[in-house]
C-alpha cells in the first residue's frame, strides 16, 4: 500500500490525447502508451505493486504527454516512479555509467584525447555493443580537455565588477563536453552588463532518474538546492541554465518526481533564453552584426514542457540576417541516454525520422537546438552542424 500524495492520476478523464502524442507509442507496439502505463495502470499498481509492467522502461520521459494532457496529470512522473520501483533490483554497469555523467566526465576529461579516440574505434564500439549494450551505431559524445570549472577559475575575478549578477548552472555538458557554450553564455551575459558566478553544483540528476537511480538523484537534488539557495540568498539573483533538461529538472522534476522541495529557488531558475529575452526587451540589446544564414530551429521536448521554447524562438528572431525556420515540435528520439541503449536504438531512430527528413528538405546552413542530446542525435543523423542558440547569439554580438 502506498501513501497517496501524488494523486494526479485521479484527474484523468481517459481522453487518450496523451497516447496520441506519445512519440514512443507511435513507433512501437512494445509500449502501450502513457494512458495505459500512467493513470490506468497506476490504479492497479496501488492495488498490487507486483503488477508493474516492465514496458514502463520504454517511456523516454520526453514529457510530451504531459503537455498534451487537459487534466494536468503528471503522467511521465507516474511512469518514472513505477519504473524506479522495478529498476532498483537490477543494477547494470551500463546504466550506472550512463547515469554518472559527473563522475565519468571528471575521469574522461583528464584523458579526453584517448577517450575520444577509443570511443570512435571499432573494437571499442563492438565491446560496448556486446557487453554493455550500448548501440554500435551511435557515435559517442566527445569529451573536452579539462573542465569548464577549471577554466572559470581564472575568469571569476572579472565577474565581480558588474552591478547585476546571475548564478550560472552550467551542467555536466558544459563542464565536460562543450566549454565553448559556457564561455559564450558568459560573453553574452557580460555584454549586457551582467556578471556570472558559478556554485559548487552536482549533476542535476536527470541521467540518474532515467536509469532508475532515484535515491542518488535525490541526493544530488538536495545538494544543488542547498548550494543554489545559499548562492542566491543575499543578492536575490537569478539562476540561469543553458541546458533545457537541467532547467526542467531543477524547476519541476525535483518537487514532482523526487519529492524534494525547491521553493527557495524555484522562482529564480530561468532557462537562459528566457532570461536574456526579457533583458533584451528592456532595451538592453547589445550591438549585433548580421549573420546572413538560414537556420532550422528544433525546440526540445523538455523546453516545451517548461514553456520556454517560445523565448528561444523570439530571441533568435532578434538576430539580424537570420532566416529562421522553426521545425515541427516533435521528439528527436534520443532522450538523453535512451537512444544510446541498444534495445531502444531502433525506436529512437524511428521517432526522429520525420525530424531528420524535415531538416534535410530545408537544407539549412545550421541547425539550432537548446539541448545537448538533441544536438548529438541530429548531428548523427543529418549532415548539418548543430549549435545552441546562445552560441549563435554570441557569434552575432559585436
Amino acid at each position, binding site marked *: *500500500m502506498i501513501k497517496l500524495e501524488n494523486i494526479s492520476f485521479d484527474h*484523468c478523464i*481517459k481522453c487518450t490525447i496523451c497516447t496520441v502524442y506519445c512519440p514512443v507509442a507511435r513507433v512501437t507496439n512494445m509500449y502501450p502508451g502513457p494512458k*495505459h502505463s500512467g493513470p*490506468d495502470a497506476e*490504479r*492497479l499498481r496501488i492495488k498490487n505493486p*507486483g503488477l508493474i509492467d516492465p514496458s514502463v522502461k520504454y517511456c523516454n520521459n520526453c514529457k510530451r504527454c504531459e503537455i498534451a494532457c487537459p*487534466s494536468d496529470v503528471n503522467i511521465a512522473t507516474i511512469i518514472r516512479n513505477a519504473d524506479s520501483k522495478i529498476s532498483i533490483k537490477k543494477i547494470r554497469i551500463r546504466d550506472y555509467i550512463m547515469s554518472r555523467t559527473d563522475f565519468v566526465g571528471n575521469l574522461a576529461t583528464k584523458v579526453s584525447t584517448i577517450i575520444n579516440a577509443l570511443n570512435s574505434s571499432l573494437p571499442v564500439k563492438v565491446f560496448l555493443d556486446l557487453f554493455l549494450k550500448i548501440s554500435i551505431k551511435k557515435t559517442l559524445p566527445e569529451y573536452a580537455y579539462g573542465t569548464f570549472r577549471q577554466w572559470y577559475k581564472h575568469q571569476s575575478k572579472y565577474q565581480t565588477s558588474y552591478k547585476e549578477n546571475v548564478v550560472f548552472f552550467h551542467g555536466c555538458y558544459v563542464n565536460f563536453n562543450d566549454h565553448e557554450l559556457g564561455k559564450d553564455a558568459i560573453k553574452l551575459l557580460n555584454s549586457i552588463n551582467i556578471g556570472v558566478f558559478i556554485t559548487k553544483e552536482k549533476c542535476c540528476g536527470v541521467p540518474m532518474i532515467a536509469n532508475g537511480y532515484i535515491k542518488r538523484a535525490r541526493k544530488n537534488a538536495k545538494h544543488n538546492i542547498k548550494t543554489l539557495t545559499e548562492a542566491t540568498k543575499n543578492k536575490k539573483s537569478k539562476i540561469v541554465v543553458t541546458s533545457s533538461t537541467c532547467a526542467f529538472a531543477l524547476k519541476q522534476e525535483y518537487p514532482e518526481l523526487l519529492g524534494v522541495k525547491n521553493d527557495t529557488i524555484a522562482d529564480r531558475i530561468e532557462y537562459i533564453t528566457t532570461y536574456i529575452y526579457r533583458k533584451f526587451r528592456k532595451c538592453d540589446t547589445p550591438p549585433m552584426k548580421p549573420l546572413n544564414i538560414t537556420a532550422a530551429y528544433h525546440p526540445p521536448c523538455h523546453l516545451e514542457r517548461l514553456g520556454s521554447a517560445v523565448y528561444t524562438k523570439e530571441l533568435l528572431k532578434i538576430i539580424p540576417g537570420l532566416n529562421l525556420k522553426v521545425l515541427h515540435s516533435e521528439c528527436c528520439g534520443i532522450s538523453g541516454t535512451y537512444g544510446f541503449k541498444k534495445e531502444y536504438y531502433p525506436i529512437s531512430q524511428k521517432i526522429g525520422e520525420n525530424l531528420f527528413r524535415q531538416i534535410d528538405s530545408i537544407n539549412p546552413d545550421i541547425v539550432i537546438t537548446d539541448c545537448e542530446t538533441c544536438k548529438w542525435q541530429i548531428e548523427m543523423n543529418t549532415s548539418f552542424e548543430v549549435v545552441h542558440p546562445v552560441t549563435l547569439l554570441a557569434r552575432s554580438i559585436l
Partner: protein
Amino acid sequence: MKKIETDVIIIGGGATGSGVLRDCTLRGIKAVLVEKDDIASGTTGRNHGLLHSGARYATKDPVSAKECIAENRILKKIARHCIEDTGGLFVTLPEDDQGYHDMLVRDCLNAGIDCKEISIKDALRKEPNLNPSIRKALKVPDATIDPFRLAASNIMDSVERGAVVFTHTEITQLITNQNSLTGVRCFDRHRDENFEIYGKVTVNASGIWGQKICEPAGIGLKMYPSKGSMLIIDYRINNVVINRCRKPSSGDIFVPGDTVSLIGTTSKKISYDIIDEPVVDDDEIKILLDEGEKLIPNVSKTRVLRAYCGIRPLVALSGNMDGRDISRGIILIDHKESDGIENFITITGGKLMTYRLMAEKATNLVCKKLNIKKKCLTRKTPIPGSEKIFFNKRKLKPFQGFSNSVVGSTIYRHGTRAEQILQSNKKGSGLICECEMVTDREVKYAIDNQLVKDIVDLRRRTRTGMGPCQGGQCAYRSAGLFTEYGETKGEEAVKMLIDFLEERWKGVKPTLWGDSLREAEFTYWIYQGLFGIGNLTKGFGVKGKRE
C-alpha cells in the same frame, strides 16, 4: 405454450439462488433457476462485498457472528478467487466511546473470532491513509468478496454439471393446484415468450421481491425493505477493511473492492412500492462523505465514481423497528407450516457471505421433501476458478503479449480459468475496457461461457465499464463485439449500448462534481456530440441518455 419439467425450481439468481442451484446440482438433483434480470442483479450486486469475520455483529447478534466466522473460513477455501484476504481493522476515533473496543474484544473471543489489538504505529503502517489520530486499533479476519464472481461461478459450475438457468426471464405467476405449488409461469424478455416450468419443489430465493411474488398466490410473506447506500471511490484508498469501532452506524466502514474502495453504508426504511427503483438521496451522500472523512481524511480529495444502493432482504417478523435492529439472521420458511402450501420454501435474510449455509439449509429441506438422502457437498467442493491458488508473481510471466496489469486483472477475476482466456488463441489481445484491463478475449469468453446477454451483464462478469470512465471508452467497443461474437444485430447493439449508458448514468448522476463531472461531460460529448446517439434511437423507440 412451452412446458418444462424438473425436480426443483429456484426463483432468483442472487447469491442465495445460485447457491441453492449448486447445492442441488452437486447432490444430483435436477434443478432449473429463473432470474428476471441477470445473475447478481439484485441485492447481491448492490452491497459492499465484505466477507465478515463476524466482529461487526459480535456484540449485538452472537449467533450471526458465529455463522459469519464459520462461513468466512469455508469460503476462503472454496471460493478463493472471489475473495481477497485483506484482513480488517476496527479503529477507535477520539470522539468514539472508548469502552467499545474492550467490549468488542470480549465478544469476538466469545464468538471464536481471532482478534488482536495492534499498535497505532502498525495500523498506520498497514494503512497509511488512515486518520493518524486514532486511539486504538483491533485486527480481525475480515476480508472482501466479489459478489458478481461468486454468484456467476456458482451458476457456471451448476450449468456445467447439467442444471438449467434462464436469465432475463421473470416469474409472473406461481401455479398452484389445491394446496400445493406445482410450477411457475415465466416470461422470457429476450425471446418475448411465455412458458411454464413444473417442479416437485419450488424454492423462493428472490430476496426482497418475495412478497411481490407470493402475494397473488395468497401467501403472506412480509418483507421489511431497508435501503443502504454506498459510494465508490476511484481507486483503493485503503488496503484492509476499516471499521469504526462503535455501534454500527452510517459511514463507518471502508471496504477495498478490487480496484476501488467503498464507503458504506446508510440505513433507511423505504416503502415497498419503490423497491425496483430506489435512489440514493443527497443527504446520504453527505453523511457518507462526512463520516468517511473522519476515518480516511484523503477521501475528500478523491473522485467519487458513483453512488448506489441495495435493499436488505429482511423479513418483518415483528412491528416497525429500525432496520439495523432486525436480526440479519437466516430465514428459512416452509410454507406448508406457515401458509398451508405444499412444496414451497422461502430462503432469505442472512448475508451475501452466508449464502452457502443458506443454500445448505434450503437444500436440506428440499431433500427432505423429495425424500432424498444426499449429504451437502458445498463445504469442500471449490467453485470453478478456485481449485487452487493461482495468483502469484510467477504466474504473470508465461502470458506473453499482455502487460502485467492485464494478466493480473484477468487472473484476479477468473482464477484458474484465466488460463483459458489468456492462452486460447492469438486473436483479440486488444483492450476493450482500459480502466479495468478487460481484453477482447475476456469479453468473448464471457459471452460464450457466462450467460452474458448484454453489456450490463458483461460488466458484472468482467468489470467492463466499472472504472473511472464509467463506460465512456469501453461501451461502444463492447457493443461492437456483441455483433461479432454473439447473435446481436446492429440495431440491438445500439439499444444495448444505450441501456448500458443509462445504467451507468444512474449511478454517476448523484456524484456529479469535480472530476466525475468532467468525465461525464466528456462521455456525453462522445456519445451525443460525436455519435449523436440520441438521434440514432428515434427509429426504434428507446430513449437516449440525458434527453
